[in-house]
């Protein structure tokens, strides 16, 4: 029962905060609600005995990714203009469509449509089961290739982020001695013949 209660509370929290994320007018508030959503889903994941991933979600997401978000929001000082947000004419149409999609998905996930799984109750692993250990075993053996690829992805993120945000050389204020030495008079001095005013 408690499990069920926890599930409903946090599921509601998750959905509520997710809703707030998309309807917020301010980026900062949206980011905070997103953090709440992440935390709520971490709880749900715990319920599913995916402890490692639940923690990872908190550490990586709340700790790193959301910080990045907040950092960008603050750095760019974005929030002045997003205040005037207003909903548009076609909103009902969009909402209807999304609702329809959710409806279809929900219909498809009725227990009857899930085979044996639909009737199963959430399993409770044995006491000596370690989620982290199980994942670790798989990760470094069967998924070594994927693991390496994940590393590459992070490398790409680094290269790309640097490449993109790297400012042009011209903004660099470092002294260039060779250029200074090579300078001639013609470079620096221009003699203009001004016409006398009448």
């Amino acid at each position, binding site marked *: 029962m408690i499990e069920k209660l926890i599930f409903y509370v946090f599921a509601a929290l998750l959905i509520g905060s997710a809703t707030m994320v998309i309807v917020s*007018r301010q980026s900062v508030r949206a980011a905070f609600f997103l953090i709440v959503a992440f935390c709520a889903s971490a709880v749900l994941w715990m319920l599913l005995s*995916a402890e490692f991933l639940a923690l990872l979600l908190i550490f990586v997401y709340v700790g790193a990714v959301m910080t990045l978000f907040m950092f960008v929001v603050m750095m760019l000082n974005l929030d002045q203009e997003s205040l005037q947000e207003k909903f548009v004419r076609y909103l009902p149409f969009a909402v209807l469509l999304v609702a329809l999609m959710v409806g279809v998905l929900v219909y498809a996930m009725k227990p009857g449509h899930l085979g044996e799984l639909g009737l199963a109750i959430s399993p409770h692993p044995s006491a000596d089961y370690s989620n982290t250990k199980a994942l670790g075993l798989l990760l470094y053996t069967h998924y070594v290739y994927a693991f390496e690829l994940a590393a590459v992805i992070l490398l790409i993120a680094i290269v790309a982020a640097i490449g993109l945000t790297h400012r042009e050389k011209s903004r660099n204020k470092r002294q260039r001695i060779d250029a200074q030495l090579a300078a001639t008079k013609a470079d620096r001095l221009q003699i203009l013949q001004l016409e006398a005013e009448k």
Partner: protein
Amino acid sequence: MVTLTDYLIVGAILFGLSLAGMIINRKNLIIVLMSVELMLLAVNMNFIAFSSFLQDPRGQIFVFFILAVAAAETAIGLAILIILFRHRQSINVTDLDTLKG
């Protein structure tokens, strides 16, 4: 008890919300990026639910990689956002209509 269906429904609703976020949000690009995160969260929810009910840890492995990719993706997305802002002084979604037709 909480069934698989319940988790999946939560995932589906999250997925729908994230899509709705992209469609109804017309001003703030950064919220669109957040919606992308929500979408991945929905997927992760599905994976973990299936993984747990199937008692198959490989689903969680997938989530692990999704988290990694999501982080990288966010980095690149924000980087693009930053230079966009640098050039336009705006991240208004409605302003991004130079390219059309």
